[in-house]
């Protein structure tokens, strides 16, 4: 038997679920809204948790397997919590030709993490993007959501070092 809307409550008391609920309501809890809703969850919480996937699955009456399938199919969705700071190196063709691999190596040298990884202290995540569409400014890097162009190994290393030496917002939050 399908559960009715009334019996489903969010996984936690967190007020942010209201935003997710609002998005689902706007689409009339239709199954086709799945991707839009996952976008909202990720925007609100930073990443997708298993609890969130289950909650969305029940609310939209979509099998959990399909929700998991969609969440893992698309590169944009992540199920790992991001670090305090993020550094996204564009590896599109123009950036690749102009030295994106060298930039990745530079971050790896400075922070000891590879692409897709977060430093053990949770300070920095190193990610790659397929193409930011900022090819005129290649090589491009997104530092904490801000696109910066014509990056050199020196500039990226400097930024990474400031991130690593920055004060942690909540001491011990990642332990």
């Amino acid at each position, binding site marked *: 038997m399908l559960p009715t809307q009334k019996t489903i409550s969010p996984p936690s008391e967190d007020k942010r679920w209201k935003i997710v609920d609002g998005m689902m309501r706007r689409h009339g809890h239709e199954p086709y809204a799945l991707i839009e809703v996952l976008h909202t969850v990720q925007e609100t919480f930073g990443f997708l948790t298993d609890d969130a996937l289950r909650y969305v699955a029940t609310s939209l009456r979509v099998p959990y397997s399909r929700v998991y399938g969609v969440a893992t199919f698309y590169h*944009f*969705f992540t199920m790992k919590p991001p670090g305090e700071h993020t550094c996204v190196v564009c590896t599109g*063709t123009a950036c*690749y030709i102009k030295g994106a691999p060298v930039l990745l190596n530079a971050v790896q040298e400075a922070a000891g993490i590879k692409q897709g990884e977060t430093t053990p202290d949770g300070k920095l995540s190193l990610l790659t993007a397929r193409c930011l569409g*900022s*090819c005129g400014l290649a090589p491009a890097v997104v530092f904490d959501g801000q696109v910066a162009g014509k990056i050199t190994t020196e500039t990226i290393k400097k930024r990474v070092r400031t991130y690593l030496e920055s004060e942690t917002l909540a001491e011990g939050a990642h332990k």
Partner: protein
Amino acid sequence: MNQDDLTSIAAQTKQSENRYDHVIKVCVAAGCLSANSEQVKTQLESELKQRGLETCCKVKGVGCMGLCAAGPLVSADANELMFQGVTPADASAVIDSVVDKKPAPAAIVMDSQLDFFTGQKKIVLENSGEIDPERVEDYIAADGYEALFHCITKLKPLGVIEQVTKSGLRGRGGAGFPTGLKWTTVAKAQGARKYVICNADEGDPGAFMDRSVLESDPHRVLEGMAIAAYAVGASKGFIYCRAEYPLAVKRLRIAIRQAENNGLLGMNIGDTHFDFKIEVRLGAGAFVCGEETALIASIEGGRGTPRPRPPFPAQEGLWKSPTLINNVETFANIPPIIRRGGDWFASIGTDKSKGTKVFALAGRVNNTGLIEVPMGITLREIIFKLGGGIPEGRRFKAVQSGGPSGGCVPEQYLDIPVDYDSLASVGSIMGSGGMIVMDETSCMVDVAKFFMDFCMSESCGKCVPCRVGTTQMHNILERITQGEAGPQDLDLLTRLTSMVKAASLCGLGQTAPNPTLTTLRYFMDEYRAHIEEGRCPAGICHPAKVEAEVGA
């Protein structure tokens, strides 16, 4: 809103702009924004206020001016004065130059007569860098929505399609399918509901034409979609846009809201019985969703995997209803075609490729940015005239068009005309318009590997030839770059390319071998240098063979 309202808004907007002696335009598209153009704009405004000049000089945020490499860009007085690399500190110098005609410092002055600007022909980008993308009035003042009103009040749907067919416009997403034919098919298809989808999932790495159009002139795309909806009989449209383009999404949403508030979208458009609504749907980072059936699956909320065609989306698309899917640039071409007639459009370009094409010029070329050129221009003109040649006196090696589905064109073909058929004849494709220039510092085997790596990870996994084939080809290319390959690997690679091309389900797999095939065809000497001599001519790979390890 009706035709009279439209005309009066246009007149009012023009009049209020004409009150100013000067209009300073600051580029606020993504490229220049990331170089701080927003602060430049604020500084210009406050400086004008301080000097009491705000009544004679206006500052306006506009879309992309094209030459992204020199950003932030500022222009004034019908683009007679142009400035590059402007910082907030340069604001007063810019105002001195515009208002008092004092020469500005040489470092920020840009020659508006550069070949980069004069060599272009703008149809799709005619408003880019001219109008404020966040104001519908600006678009209306530039003849916006006039074509839509003309269609819904004066033309029958078939009359609209006739103009589009006459124009000879071909799909700008890359494959070049005749747009008029597609519209005819959807118009003839039976179905209670029909949909119009705009493909803004510009996944090709190295391409940013659609992003720029959406950021600089979003209403043009909405108008093109509305005209298409009227022509094929649809009342609902979707724009499937990449989530990686937050600014484009934001401006699209603003544009849709403004159009709805002004009765340009929604119910009873232009006081007629024509209804059309548009929703934005976000992609989530899957290249395969650029394929139309995968895109439809994604809008329906599922994994973006393609399905075999037929049935084509024109007959059975979104929620099994007839669906028209066109690319951003295709829709952006529609309003001018209706305004000026199909014959006018057909007079531009070559025999089989009409109109203009927007290219994103990037890589090892001096002037990187966005250009719109008539079809039939040569690659040499694009790269060496508009693009200003290769930096640091290096030698040109190849130009890559069409992204992971395209090929690398070597120097000997630089004089072929740029159109769908000529590019296909040398093994590449027109593609959506990414054009990456490479010089002698790029290793072509490494480039082939880069694209294969892309296709391998973007393969949706549904059909075996693509899923396994791309991985195997990548492995071979990897072995070649590491100096672990033998001569037999080249045969194997060639066999695999034709197998994957022939047996894959969708365009991703069918075209994935193209970069490898063209590099094998034109740069075999580089493959041989890696395999036989253990050397990478460009010095990118490290194929040095350690004898003891070979065969181990």
